[in-house]
């Protein structure tokens, strides 16, 4: 894993979007298309804005999947990840191939159906965030590192649900769904390249646990350390608790 630390969220987002656009561009050159997995949430907003602004990306050759979606939340709800992706990425580009998780009506069918499409070919790039509780997608601790199924129906823990209220997607914790569809850990790790975008001070502890603690289902995102091509993008705030030796250990050139 390579860790890159930036002055602020803006420069972080630009650099991450630069790498992402480059990876998408290379996949299209090599294989004629790019299969990408996109993360959502507050931490990804600036990054996706920067990616949409990237020049000469042929979005028509991009096929999109997403990491997760709440069970029982209509696409019209402001917190819906499908709405998020349509508004902030899909409608802003010429993207035509996308597979949204309709977890409102029939979550199990959606998980199965999109899962089959997802596992029919390799994933080129996955974007990810890391939760305040160190979750990866909606795999809250203790995460399942073994399941091979591409998507799972998971129960959301309280820390995770509180984070969603903190980010103002919901006005009260009782409104936050208790379940979600989440891409499995193993499916995420199958991506050839992972770009993890993790700004903000509220993520500092989770980042520290991920990099300096043991690799464990109790810190789901720690598994990213085993992936051969993950770049973790931090800003000064989210990196604030890391020791110098950790930063040196994961430095790029």
């Amino acid at each position, binding site marked *: 894993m390579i860790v890159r630390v930036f002055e602020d969220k803006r420069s972080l987002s630009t650099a991450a979007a630069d790498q992402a656009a480059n990876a998408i561009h290379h996949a299209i050159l090599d294989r004629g298309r790019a299969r990408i997995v996109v993360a959502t949430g507050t931490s990804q907003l600036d990054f996706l804005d920067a990616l949409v602004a990237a020049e000469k990306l042929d979005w028509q050759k991009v096929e999109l999947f997403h990491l997760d979606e709440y069970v029982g939340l209509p696409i019209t709800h402001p917190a819906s990840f499908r709405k998020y992706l349509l508004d902030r990425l899909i409608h802003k580009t010429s993207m035509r191939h996308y597979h949204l998780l309709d977890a409102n009506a029939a979550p199990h069918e959606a998980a199965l159906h999109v899962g089959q499409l997802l596992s029919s070919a390799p994933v080129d790039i996955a974007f990810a965030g890391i939760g305040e509780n160190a979750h990866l997608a909606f795999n809250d601790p203790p995460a399942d590192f073994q399941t091979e199924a591409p998507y799972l129906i998971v129960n959301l823990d309280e820390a995770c649900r509180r984070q969603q209220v903190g980010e103002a997607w919901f006005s009260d914790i009782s409104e936050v769904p208790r379940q979600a569809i989440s891409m499995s*850990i193993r499916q995420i*790790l199958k991506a050839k390249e992972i770009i993890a975008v993790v700004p903000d001070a509220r993520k500092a502890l989770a980042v520290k646990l991920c990099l300096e603690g043991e690799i464990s289902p109790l810190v789901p995102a720690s598994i990213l350390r085993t992936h051969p091509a993950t770049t973790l993008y931090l800003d000064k705030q989210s990196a604030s608790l890391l020791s110098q030796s950790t930063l040196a*250990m994961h430095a790029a050139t």
Partner: protein
Amino acid sequence: MPLTAQTPSPHPRPIPSLRWWIGVLLFASTVINYIDRQTLSILAPFLKQQYRWTNSDYAAIAIAFRIAYSIGQTVCGRQIDRVGTRLGLSISVTWYSIVSLLTSLANGILSFAAFRFLLGAGESANWPGASKAVSEWFPKRERGLAAALYDSGSSVGGAIAPFLILPVYLRWGWRVAFVIPGVLGFFWLIAWRRLYHLPQDHPRISPAELQMLLDDKPPTESSVAKPLPRWRDLLRLPQTWGTIISKAFTDPVWFFVTDWFPIYLIAKGISLKSGLIAVWIPFLAADLGNFFGGGVSGYLIRRGWSLGAARKALVVFGGFGVMLLIPTIFTVNLYLITLLFALATFSYASFSTIANVLPTDLFASEAVASVSGMSGTGAGIGTILAFLLIGHYSDARQSAATHSFDPIVIAAGLIPFIGMILVLLLVRNTRATDRGLVRRI
């Protein structure tokens, strides 16, 4: 010896024990040789990420080296016999140093594979060249020690490489990291050109040392060459197969350690900088294993064991010892992984020392080179197959994270064990021994 004044003289002052300085030079060339080749495996995790290589892509690059290296060992040996040691090793070191420098211009899988192929071709001359130099400069009784000296350069080079390469990479990038070993080669070359001449031509050899070397030469080499044994006849002997297997079932494990270890550590979630200890200790353990293997089998023979029993004792030790790789699947603890790998490479090296002497033990001198050649080829094929499988399975199991190398490590632990069983079954005194086709062991 006090010297009063430095007077210019047509005869430069002799260097006492000049041959050991030459031994040191050969050791240094092996060190540089290994630093050159280890540069890629140390940088592999970074290059993989930068160039978006899968492990199968990396395997293809590593195989390019192995192919050239396997072929080169046979070809370069003959060429060095033709042009002589001084020029032969000069060309070889110049060649691979330039290739290492040029590798810094590589720009993708094809150019890396091409440079690795050229590097393997050049580096393969080191061992035949060094053993020829030893035969020119050392009396028979010291040749074993001299060979052990230059051979241990491989472990020392492998152990030094991460400390030299990684800081350079982290500061200046991978292109500069390939320049360093290339430059080292040219320093070596200067020393070599100044110091290496045949004993009888050397301006600075002491008369006593020269006389000692001349006395050691056999009076006349037998000019009547015995007919070379036919391949077909050799391949009919179970002992030949036992010898081939002893190398073909052990070398791939060693090259897994030399070429894949940094990538394996990443899969265990251990960053290379914190894992340096795991990269150099197994090399030193292998070096000790070499001396252990040679030393213990010699000791057992002196204790009255038969040659065969003394050799097989080490084969059994190695066959069981390498299985210590297997428990590493249960841990991500750096120190435990290092310890288990070190014990395994120690065991591997004692097995491999025996694999290297089996041809001399078993076959008449006119067949030794043929059988060694076959076991070298067997080891090359085994390693290439192993690399293809390692690339494929580690890619396919990437999502198993810390467990993605499990089947590979289990196989690496079991294959020398299977080799051990086959060697025990095949290398025995048979009717062919009674008929004098194979030596009694």
